[in-house]
């Protein structure tokens, strides 16, 4: 971990730890404002614009800690918009813009005070437009207020801020930050179930003594280790463009599959208490279920992986390009 990563990670941890309202539950109200005040959203912004000039690895380290607290914080949305604002020479947009995500045929952004602009990638051309963050409100799967950008706003298109490649690269980075948050969350859930199984007794013994429980927790640990390894591989910068794309879909897919398995097993192990609002698991599960389908869902990850692999030329001795694709992107 770089010195910068270390510093940012400590700041993130400190902010979140201060906001605990119950074991494992972070107060969401005002969190975004505090993150902005601390400047965590400047991690990818150039130093000349007052940013940290960090890498995606540095941002992922913060996202992972936010995940460990299941923080209700649209981190990728703010960080990627801030980076773009700095890149296009519009530093005045840094503190007030969100990167929008597409869901079916609408673009959505979190509804947050002071963040009144959105950057939207045009799905046909890949160009990025700056529009007002206006539209109909709704609550996302984890209970946070969001906006569906209105069709009027999207039709007018606003101001063109970036060209095709930038939109695709940002989506890729959003997927990785999302995967990093999911990794943090499943790591924490893994700790929670180990602790619970070692404390809770039924039938006169700790439930950790039951093989069925041990195996469910082993499955959780398996998903954590695999997600950690794929994310680490996807954050490797020294790769060709197509290999980075493939590694990124794999990391998002693995984190999504892991989120499903970990949540299901954890609820089974925790019993009724984890299902209630009183327990942290409830909040972690909602986040995991939100993140696993965010930006690019499992179905699209699978299709994209297959498509990249099918377009990779076979090498000597192989009937398809599967093997060279795998080797270059892990």
């Amino acid at each position, binding site marked *: 971990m770089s010195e910068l990563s270390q510093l940012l990670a400590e700041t993130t941890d400190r902010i979140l730890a201060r906001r605990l309202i119950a074991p494992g539950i972070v107060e969401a109200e005002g969190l975004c404002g505090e993150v902005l005040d601390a400047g965590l959203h400047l991690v990818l912004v150039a130093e000349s614009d007052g940013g940290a000039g960090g890498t995606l690895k540095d941002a992922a380290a913060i996202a992972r800690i936010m995940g460990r607290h299941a923080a209700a914080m649209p981190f990728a949305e703010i960080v990627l918009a801030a980076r773009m604002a700095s890149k296009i020479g519009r530093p005045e947009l840094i503190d007030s813009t969100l990167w929008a995500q597409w869901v079916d045929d609408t673009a959505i952004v979190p509804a947050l005070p002071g963040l009144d602009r959105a950057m939207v990638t045009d799905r046909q051309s890949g160009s990025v437009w700056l529009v007002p963050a206006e539209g109909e409100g709704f609550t996302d799967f984890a209970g946070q207020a969001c906006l569906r950008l209105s069709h009027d706003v999207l039709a007018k298109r606003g101001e063109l801020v970036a060209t095709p490649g930038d939109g695709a690269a940002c989506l890729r980075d959003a997927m990785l930050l999302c995967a990093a948050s999911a990794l943090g969350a499943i790591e924490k859930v893994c700790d929670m179930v180990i602790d619970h199984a070692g404390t809770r007794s039924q039938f006169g013994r700790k439930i950790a003594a039951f093989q069925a429980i041990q195996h469910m927790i082993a499955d959780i640990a*398996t998903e954590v280790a695999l997600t950690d*390894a794929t994310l680490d591989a996807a954050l490797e910068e020294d790769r060709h463009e197509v290999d980075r794309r493939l590694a990124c879909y794999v990391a998002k897919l693995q984190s999504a599959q892991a989120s499903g398995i970990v949540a299901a097993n954890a609820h089974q192990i925790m019993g009724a208490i984890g299902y209630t609002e009183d327990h942290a698991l409830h909040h972690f599960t909602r986040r995991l279920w939100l993140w696993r389908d965010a930006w690019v869902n499992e179905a699209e990850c699978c299709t994209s992986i297959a498509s990249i692999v099918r377009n990779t030329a076979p090498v000597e001795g192989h009937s*398809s390009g599967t093997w060279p694709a795998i080797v270059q992107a892990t």
Partner: protein
Amino acid sequence: MQMQIEPSFRRQLLSPEASALRDRVRRFIADEIDAGRIIPGRQSWTSFDREFSLRCGEQGYIAMTWPRQYGGHEKPAWARYVVIEELLAGGAPLGSHWIADRQSGPQILRHGSDRLRHEILPQIAAGRCCFGIGMSEPEAGSDLSAIRTKAEQVTGGWRLNGRKIWTTNGQLAEYMIVLCRTSPRSDDRYAGMSQLVVPMTSTGVAVRPITTMVGEPEFAEVTFDDVFIPDDQLLGTPGAGWSLVMEELAHERSGPDRFLSTFSLLSLMVAQTQGAMADQQLGGLIGRLMAVRALSVSISGRLGRGEGVSADAAIMKEAGTRLEQQIPETARHVSKTTPISGAAGLSGALAAARLSAPCFSLRGGTREILKGIIAREIGLR
């Protein structure tokens, strides 16, 4: 002062040197396929082919990291990783040297007598020497502490009696490393066991081949009737065999042979199927395979730095073998083929993968044993 930081294992695997080595192995595989000696999807790392192993020996693909004085090539760990994963992904028949190269040779190198090292290691490196793993017994599968095979101390060595079973390629092996009791079972059930290097030509060794679901006699039952083994063929110190077994298993569990056993079938599916349904399923399998490989690469890096990896090694084998078993099942959903043993293309590859798959989650520690190890390592029991 500038510190020289060694590039990560992953970076080493992506280096130009590694790419050049990959190309060389791929050329070798392609030549073998052209000559009809490799049929992708029909062979694996347990398929015995002495001639193929001899050619691997000539290429320097065995004993890659061992010292030159024992026939090795003193290559870095990343070079061995590249070669073995390319051979595995290419569907090569590696059974004649695989176990010797992966675990028996390294075991002898670390714990064998000088005579054993000089006599046996160059033979392995040349591809002339097959090893069997003498662990399982009729009454000792997952619970190795229950073994009954025993060796009594006699003048100049040990007298071995007992029976081993389900030994891969036991009937074709030159040697077996036999786990046996050298003192009776006590409160510490893992104490008092030793590992002996047993030449299969020794007087008193009898072998019965056992046919598996694959339809080949790829297992054997081996009985030892008053077999004399000289002192310097005991590995390590008498009674400390269990720690050697554990060390061996860590290496046995985290390599690419634990996720590439049915890779040729997956590659054939990509080449020969199409459509949205196939893309969904194949994309999922490939994604998972890349996740397991990423973990394997990370473990190899940590092994090289001398760090403990036992939880992750068990995790990798469990996830890898589950994936290997999923591949033939998925083939039944994305193609209209029917498994026919010995047939060309997808059909024959599916038959071979389907029939060998049950063994993947048994050998080298069953799925349930591995999950127990994972649970223990993360602090559950």
